[in-house]
Every structure is written in C-alpha cells, then in structure tokens.
C-alpha cells in the first residue's frame, strides 16, 4: 500500500471513529426510558390547521356616527373566535382540578378604547344610563360605553382524540362594570373535566355600546385572555 493510500484509509478510520463515538452501544440488558412531562395550561388563537395567528384580534362592526347612543340591537357587535381564528385552550395534564378562561382589559379597569393618536376615547366598563353604557358614570374618566361578552352564545368544540366538552361550561352573558366585573368568565372547567384536553371556542359574542356623538375614527382596545389553573 502506498503512503497516500495509507493516509486516506487512516483518515477514513478517524472519521469512522468520531462517527462511532457519537453512537451509543447498548449493553446486553439495557432498558430504554422515556420521560413525558406535563406541559402548561395555555390559550391562544389558532387557525383551522392549529397554526398560531399573528396579531390575533376580534373585529367589531363598523358604526356610522350618530347623535344618539347606539345600544342593544344597534350596538357594535363582533365575535370572539371564528372558523379561521379559533380560541383554543390546551390543558396537557397541567391543571388537574379544573381551570377557567377569562377576559379582561390589559391596561386594567381604568383603560378605555382609544384612537391611534390617543386623543379620542370611549369606555368599555361603564354601566350608567337608562340604557347601560350610554351615560358617563361616576368613574374617573369622562367616557361612556360598555362591552357585554356572551360566551354562552358560542360553540365549544373538543379537539383531541378522546376528549369531550363534558364538565366544561360556558360563561353567562356579562357586561364589564368597573370595580365590580373587571373580568368576564368565558369557560369554567370542573375538576372532572379531562386532564388532557384541547378544545376551542367560536362565536362568543361581543357587544359594545357606542356613546352618542362619538367622534368617527378607528378605535382599539387591548384585552388579555387568561387561562388559570384552579
């Protein structure tokens, strides 16, 4: 064998050694072990393929300026959870004694709907008025307006092999009310609900009272959905 041939074979052997060194040789009586740990209770907006939706949102119907308060059947409405933006909740054996999913204003009870320049506002949790939400109440701001959330109007669907919606109840219709109802319950899972569970809510309704003479603009409100292990 020539020097070159020896060198090549030696190099090949060296590489093989490295490759084999990264490989474990099983002993005659070894056991393979695998640990599967529970994950975390979590909620998110996913599409129908269970891919996370960027910048999840819930659009409310556009309203025309009015000198009158727009409320009840004339309020601005929308849905939390839709066919393309499903409100998913996942419990991978994390909350074994039940959990809740609730929604609240990210900025706290004193926050308001605001336009892009933060120069125009209206409220989401003021119950004042013959028609609730049409009058500014005794809170510190000078804005009227109130959101009502109705999870019971939505549809809850289980989305995993053996899980069912039994023992997961939808929250009743409730309006935000500063200091009294700062969080609205969307779902309440009993202790007997599946410990391993994945499902989604669609069609929970949002209804926002628009105060009289509200300045026309685009308004945003940030809401946080919290999944809480009980």
């Amino acid at each position, binding site marked *: 064998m020539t020097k070159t041939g020896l060198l*090549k074979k030696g190099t*090949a052997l060296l*590489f*093989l050694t490295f*490759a*084999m060194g*990264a490989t474990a040789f099983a002993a005659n009586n070894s056991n393979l072990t695998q640990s599967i740990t*529970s*994950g*975390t209770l*979590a*909620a*998110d*907006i996913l599409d129908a393929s269970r891919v996370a939706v960027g*910048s*999840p*949102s819930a*659009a*409310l119907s*556009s309203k025309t300026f009015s000198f009158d308060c727009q409320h009840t059947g004339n309020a601005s409405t*929308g849905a939390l959870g839709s066919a393309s933006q499903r409100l998913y909740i*996942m419990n991978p054996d*994390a909350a*074994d*004694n039940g959990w*809740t999913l609730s929604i*609240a204003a*990210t*900025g*706290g009870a004193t926050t308001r709907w*605001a*336009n*892009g*320049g933060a120069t125009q506002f209206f409220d989401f949790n003021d119950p004042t008025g013959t028609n609730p939400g049409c009058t500014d109440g005794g809170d510190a701001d000078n804005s009227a307006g109130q959101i009502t959330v109705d999870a*019971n109007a939505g549809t809850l669907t289980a989305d995993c092999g053996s899980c069912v919606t039994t*023992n997961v*109840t939808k*929250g009743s219709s*409730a309006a935000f009310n500063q200091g009294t*109802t*700062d*969080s*609205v*319950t969307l779902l*309440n899972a*009993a*202790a*007997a609900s599946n410990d391993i569970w994945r499902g989604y809510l669609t069609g929970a309704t949002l209804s926002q009272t628009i105060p009289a003479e509200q300045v026309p603009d*685009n308004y*945003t*409100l*940030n*809401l*946080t*959905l*919290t*999944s*809480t*292990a*009980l």
Partner: protein
Amino acid sequence: MRITLVATLFAFLVGMVPPVFAVENSGVGGKPANPRNDNPRSQSIFVYELEPGKTVQDAVTLINGTDQPKTVEVYPADGQIASGGAFACDQKADKRDQEAAWITLDKESVELPPASEQKVDFTLTVPKDASVGEHNACIAIQAVEAPAASGVNGVQLSFRSAIRVAVTVPGKLSKELVYDSLNVKRQDHKLLANVAVRNNGNVSLDTTLDTKVSNLLGMKVETISGEYPVLAHQRAEFNFEFKKPVWGGVYRVVSTATYNDDQGSSLGEKSDNRKTIRSSKTVFVVPNASALAADVGFVVLVALLVWRWQRAKVLHRKGKSYTVKDGDNLQSIARVLGVRWKLIARMNGIKAPYVLKPGETIRLPQKAIKKLAAKKSAKSTTKKSTKE
C-alpha cells in the same frame, strides 16, 4: 477512493447529527415546581397553610412549549372574582396591594429557548395582621410579544397563563354553602339550567354539583356533574346545558351540591364529612313537532275510545230489550234498524265471533227502535189508504 470518501462522510454525518424530535406547540405558562405528595392539589396550584408572620420558600417552573425562543415575564397578581363567581387574576397593570404583595419572585423575566423550562424561586410572607381564612393570589406567566399597532380598529388580544396561590391562615374556619337560585329556561333545542350557590364561609369549598332532569315518574332523563371551587364569601354561577326532552311535558330539575364540611381539613384534603344541600325546579317543556303530533294523536285516540265506551253504556241503559229469534244475527238486526252492527255488539258486550243465540235477550238502541216503529206505522197507514 471516491466511494471510500463518500462512505466515510456518510458515516460521520449519521453519527454526529443528533436525533430531532417534533415539538408540539402547547404555549407558554408554568406549574408549581415542588408539588407535595400529601396534597394532590399542589400539582396544579400553590396551596399553603401559614400562620401570620410566617414565610415559605417555593418555586414556579416556567415552560416554553412553543418552537420559538420566548422572553417570558412572571409576576404576582391579586386575585379577583370574574363574572359568575369564577376565580381570576388582576392584570399586570393593576396595583398589587393585597395578597400579591405577599409574594416576591427572584426574577421578573427569563429567556426560554424552544421547548424548555426553568425554575424561578419565590418567597411568600403572610403579614402579621392577616385575617383568619383563605386568601388567594396568582402567579401570572406571559410571553412578551411585539406590541400591536395602534389605531387598528377592534379588539387586540393577548394571552397569559396563571396559577392560583391559595393561602389559609389557620384559626376559626367556617364552611357554609347555600343555594342562591336555580333557573331553567328553554333555548332552541336545549334546556339551560343556571345554578347559583353562595359560600358564606371564610375558605373556598370544592363543591360537587349534580344537576339532574327527571320526568314526573322520577325517571332520570339526563344528569350533569362536576366539581368546582366556590371561593370564600362569593356567589358562583354555573350554566348546564341539557338536551330538550323530545316528548315534552312536565319535568323536574334537581340540583344537589356536596362539599367537605370538615372544619379542620384544608384545601385539597379529603374528608368523610360531606354535607349536601339541594334545590329543585319544575318546568314545562313543549314537545317537538313530531312528538306533539304523536301526543295529540294519542290523546284523540284515547278520547275516542272513551267516548265510544261511554256511548255504548248509555245506549245499553236506555235501550229496549229484544229477544233473539231463529235466523237473527247482528248484521240482520242492524240492517233493519239502520244502525251499525258493531254498535249493537258494543252495547251488549258481545265479542268475536259475534254469535247470537235464539231466545237470548239483547238491548237495542231505543231511538232506532222508535224510528223503525214509526216507519212501520207509516207503511201500514199507506197500505190502508191504498186499499180504501
């Protein structure tokens, strides 16, 4: 030589590249890092029994179950009551001036690679003036996301996970649950039972709620059961959906609530001292269209049968006696009288094969006999006048 090199490189790559496991996206959140074997509730939430002035050290495991690296914030938050009496947590923007102030976390945020977890230590100190009973706070966990663009019309959503922290200050603990209301309403093809209970005690009660729909005979139609925490001094409300009974009618909705009545046992501990309270409501359910048609048809049929039986009785009572002659049968007698033979059979309780015996006395409809007599009389009068 070329083959040797390729084979060598292949062996190298196979040996050195680690196996890749698929990551299931289960979000960002956390769980108690040190659950206790003596209390299964501590697997999911933090549960403590602490005297005023005492401190406990513990940890929370932050989990990034996504396939992206995440900056994860962790912070204590005061507990609050959401609509329907469910437990919820204050927002990060809210003041921490109640039980959240008892908790001090070692870190406020961590960087978590994909599919990883990390422990964050914390201490919890109960103030010396804390009242006896249960106190609730939260440890909230949230991934930092890019802020949403302003001026975008509508509601912008963000998500977080939270773990309840339940601290019981020992002393005179009281446990009392009462029913606040039970309402049942019909909604589309469902019966919606709204059950409300009130916890008048100073500790939360893990309450088993059984709500049952049964018919007037007491036969169970459907039952929904579940165990829910009802927080101290709070009213909790639950909605249970039942399928609307097809047949309609009067139904009874009964709700029972059972809880651990042992004043000495704390959250998560089992006890044989269980107390049950109950409430009930009666509701009328309209049957669905086909069931209603069947119901109406049944009622009409029964009414018809009863009417026919009654009519036969009356006719029999008011009828005239007749002695059966040779050659008589039900059909021939009925033909003469101008009535249906089955009426005569029913009047006299004659069953199949509907045979009459000569000499037997039966009752015939009086009206039919009078009509027949009038006919005969009219015939003979006509014959007389014809002869004359």
